[in-house]
């Protein structure tokens, strides 16, 4: 069963910088990249969870994403817990 969330994310991909190495295709845990004529293309952007794997593994800086955990308690705790900068999850 396909699970989908709200489809909101900060993924930005600049095809002009793509060198066609295919690392993004390999690392994406939701398989949203695929190779098309020696360039990577984004297929289902809505499925991006902002894990940051593609951006981190792109040696050519073609991918930008504001990576972070899709975790409500993390967002809430950071809002209420400004003092404890070391607050962490899992």
């Amino acid at each position: 069963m396909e699970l989908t969330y709200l489809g909101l994310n900060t993924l930005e991909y600049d095809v002009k910088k793509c060198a066609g190495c295919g690392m993004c295709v390999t690392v994406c845990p939701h398989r949203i990249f695929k190779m098309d004529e020696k360039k990577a293309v984004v297929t289902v952007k809505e499925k991006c969870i902002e894990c940051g794997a593609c951006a981190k593994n792109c040696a050519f800086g073609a991918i930008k994403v504001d990576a972070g955990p899709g975790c409500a308690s993390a967002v809430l705790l950071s809002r209420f817990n400004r003092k404890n900068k070391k607050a962490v999850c899992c």
Partner: protein
Amino acid sequence: MKTEKQSCGCGQAKEAQKEECSCGGPVKEIVKFKETGSRWMINIAGESIPLVPAKLTATDIIGNFLARFGINRMDHAVRPGLYAVGRPGKTAPVLVSANYKMSFDALRKELSGIDAWILVLDTKGVNVWCAAGKGTFGTQELIKRILTVKLDKIVTHKNLIVPQLGAPGIETHLVMKHSGFRVIYGPVEACDIEEFLKNGMNAGEKERTVGFGLWKRLEITGIEFVSAVEIAAIVSLIAVLAASFTKNGFNVISGISNASYFIGAMFVAVFFSTIIPAALMPYLPGRMFSVKGAISGFAGSVIFVLLAGGMTRLTQAAVIVLSTTLASFVFMNYTGTTTFTSLTGVRREIEISAPVMIMGAVIGTGLQITDFIMKGAIKWN
């Protein structure tokens, strides 16, 4: 690294000044590592490498089970370094893992009949995916660990098999540049390693996709369940105390009796905010977790109200509103354990849901207090 990463979260690293995440205690240095069950050492290139079995002992299994429920979870770590499985030689594959004991065990138990090296990174006892997000399962630590264990002397090849879920922390090109080792991403799940090695280090689409099946969803509800029980216990205690201020003075017995429906409802809410919605997640309507949780909590409390019987309309209303709100809140926090939520999406969900939840909590508490007063539990004049 260019940017100073804030050590954080369930998922991913946050750059300084941004919101940092949390789901547990702060990152701490683990002093006492768990035994890995190694009784023999392999001597290779002048180094002594502990040999670990590809089979888990009862102690391993019990420890991992308890960690699922938050027991000793923060100390569930193995010593970082190099380990051997089987009889690895200079050409054996090198598999990279985190030092969360459950991650390490999940890997080695899939390696029976395989000769391999396991390079355990110091992720402060956190699993691969979460540590990759924090940056502890990261480029720097990987390079450092390769040098510390003198990997270039132990193996003659230059390949490292890194779990695909570690990719959010690893810059492949920088690892190559600074250590000479080539990162090859392995499958998502350790159980597909054998197939991966057989296929000349190739993983299929299925092995590269993160799933979230029924078993996985239930496996990770342990922590949520324990924390929901804690919340419910505290709320129940407050309710008992509030209901103990009777007309005839402070009386805990009548407090318990007055709050009994409320306590029952709280624990119904625990089930209907954790295990039930986790299992039924794909079938519950709504995309937001708070909506799914609210529906589940509402259904649970209605069933409770119908089965318990003998409640006044006011008690029923209080029970339903509070359980629905609690379930909505608890299940919203389940977003952090799932594999398909994004931070941007979660922020939006909180924006929409938080005001409704606060309203629910205020109305529910109001109804409950009125109910206690009507029952004569609380002295109010």
